[in-house]
């Protein structure tokens, strides 16, 4: 009787909300605060902010965007991109984030997972994974927004990260990201079978029906959505309605 969470994902570059395909070819969409407020009003269960260029510059630049979101967005906020230390995490949580999503830095230093989880609780430590398929039923972990290979196997890495204290997995399929062709269901299924922590499926949602597949076949606990919302193909309210009609349990929400 878990409720599937509908999460709006906002990829940020500098002051702008952007969107690419396969995490590349980034296009400016608009103002993050305007879109965040729109998705909050539509009934997003959570928001995820990702600083897409953070790893490149070695730091997360979202403090001001998060501070401003915390003024008028009253649902949980996750921030990722360029978080290198417990201090970086502390800073973003003070700005109003509820959880941090970490990818590149914990691949380099897995103990950071434990350090963040010990300090703030596992529920706060989201492992972000950028996965690319390399063979049948095999995926490799990428970092730096899908640019750098790590040689790590996704399934082995997820198991290790959870044992170190990761409380949630944000699983982005680089292959599907920005394509609007649906989630990588075998990837999601492979991960949800191995771990008991919640898994957020990200990358590929192009229509509300894709949510049904990734939940019923992939056992995802949540879905992160970007393109489908940014280009106004549909609304979170409509996706919620489709989910309810298909018997998927979601938060009951009436737009005020």
């Amino acid at each position, binding site marked *: 009787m878990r409720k599937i969470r509908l999460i709006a994902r906002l990829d940020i570059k500098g002051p702008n909300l952007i969107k690419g395909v396969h995490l590349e070819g980034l296009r400016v969409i608009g103002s993050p605060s305007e879109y965040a407020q729109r998705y909050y009003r539509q009934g997003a269960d959570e928001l995820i902010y990702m600083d897409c260029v953070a790893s490149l510059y070695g730091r997360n630049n979202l403090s001001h965007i998060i501070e401003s979101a915390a003024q008028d967005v009253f649902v949980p906020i996750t921030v990722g991109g360029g978080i290198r230390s417990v201090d970086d995490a502390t800073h973003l949580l003070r700005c*109003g984030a509820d959880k941090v999503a970490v990818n590149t830095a914990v691949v380099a230093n897995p103990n950071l997972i434990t350090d963040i989880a010990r300090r703030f609780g596992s529920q706060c430590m989201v492992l972000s994974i950028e996965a690319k398929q390399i063979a049948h039923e095999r995926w490799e972990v990428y970092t730096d927004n899908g640019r750098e290979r790590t040689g790590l196997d996704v399934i082995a890495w997820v198991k290790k990260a959870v044992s170190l204290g990761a409380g949630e997995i944000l699983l982005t399929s680089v292959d599907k990201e920005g394509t609007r062709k649906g989630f990588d269901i075998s990837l999601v299924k492979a991960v949800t079978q191995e771990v*008991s922590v*919640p898994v957020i499926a990200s990358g590929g949602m192009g229509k509300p029906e894709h949510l049904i597949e990734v939940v019923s076949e992939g056992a995802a606990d949540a879905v992160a959505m970007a393109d489908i919302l940014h280009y106004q193909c549909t609304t979170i309210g409509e996706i919620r309605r489709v989910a309810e009609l298909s018997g998927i349990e979601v938060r009951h929400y009436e737009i005020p």
Partner: protein
Amino acid sequence: MKSPEVTVIDYGVGNLLSVKRGLEYCGAEVYITDRPGSILASSKVVLPGVGAFANAMAELERLQLIEVIQEVAQRGTPFLGICLGMQLLLDESEEFGLTQGLGLISGQVIPVPHISTTGQPQKIPHIGWNNLVVSGNRLNWQNTILETVKPGESTYFVHSFMANPLDMNHRIADCIYGGVSISAVIGRDNIVGCQFHPEKSGEVGLKILRQFLT
């Protein structure tokens, strides 16, 4: 009209900013403090909290706030505990050995069961949105902090332990997790506690904060 004033107790656990902004959004003037004098002089008090019970009680003790909180709550000042701040209202907690609480509502804090009533393993912590239902002994939420909330509306939970008040009349709302009824809102007289985070529960949470401010 003058904005209602609220004091949020700062004892070094958790992010107070979201609570402050939620209350401000609802029209309150918010003071964050750990000073006994300011807390005693407040017209409304919020006890937030994230983390472990024993650590929170130790911090309250170090700051000499235990008696202060007991006094302010006993004298009738509207008092809201959020998440761990709600659990602290009880007599004691089983989290990492038995620890004494504030004793403002009789009962214990116990683990959220790892097994559902049908024998299925349950994900712990209980994280996410869950529906509020009217607790067993009640007909509705009239004259409670949930006055403007409809049964079935959802709020956001993150917790591994749960409050178990002895007196069923102190249970205002529950949520159901794995078939188990978990206290979502408890209270008596001027004292109320929410297991969920109203400041992270969208418009429903804001309705609850507004009701506290009235």
